[in-house]
């Protein structure tokens, strides 16, 4: 119950910090994901994208999928 309320409040108020919008997120998503997959600091390279993923479920799903797909291409970590 409390978790559900907390999630609802999170959805209502969104991320606290500055965030980019959906269009900028789409533009930067491939670079961000390739940096993540390479173990680099993607958040330093694209500030505000992580916060946007917190506030936007659609972009969040697409980010999850792109990262998973790129990781699948990379094959099992050796």
């Amino acid at each position, binding site marked *: *119950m*409390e978790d559900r*309320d*907390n999630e*609802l*409040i999170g*959805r*209502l*108020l*969104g991320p*606290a910090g500055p*965030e980019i*919008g*959906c*269009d900028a997120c*789409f533009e930067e*998503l*491939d*670079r961000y*994901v*390739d940096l993540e997959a390479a173990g680099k600091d993607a958040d330093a390279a694209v500030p505000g994208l992580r916060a946007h993923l917190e*506030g*936007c*479920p*659609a972009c969040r*799903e*697409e980010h999850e*999928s*792109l990262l*998973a*797909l*790129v990781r*699948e*291409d990379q094959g099992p970590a050796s």
Partner: protein
Amino acid sequence: MTPATTTVPGVMRTSSVAPGTRLDPESQELLQALTGSGRAYDDACARLHELLLRAARFEVTRRARSLKGAEADAIATEAADDALLAVLRRLDDFRGLSKLTTWAYKFALYEAAVKVRRHAWRDRELPVEPDTLASLHGGVPGPEEDVEMRERLGTIAAAIDEVLTPHQRRVLVALAVNGVPIDVLAERLSTTRGALYKTLHDARAKLRVQLEETS
């Protein structure tokens, strides 16, 4: 001094890849073929479509497990076709800051995700707003430890009534309370995801300011 194999020699005139940008060999080869012509171009398009179809199927399988095989396949194929057009149209925008496959995948994932969301809601009316907003004010009385949380939700509900425009309120309630996917709402309101998110973002900012002032 940079070896030709790690730069983009022939394509600089037709792509936005900055001179000297290091592309991986696979991206370089595919990009070159896609900015070329004839048989090599056709082959590259076919290869690109295959990549896009794989990404679209990946997304449809992840997000719509309940879809029947033929239906899922139709959505994935349509998404890959749309993504191919988008990628070819926007090839000039590829700046070489990621792998070309990663850049192309995102178009297929986007097209597939939007179609899956819209498909899931195709026969559903958007929830009627006032009923669902009322649940924030009180609804079912919870156990003792929920009192504080209930109060907080009540404060937010009051702020929604006080400071948001009708459009901001409608968008916030649909997206944050009723769980309407943003692409479904964008379609019904004849707008875009980006524009709706901007409205959502402005509404959230107003609420935060109001909550700070009233606390």
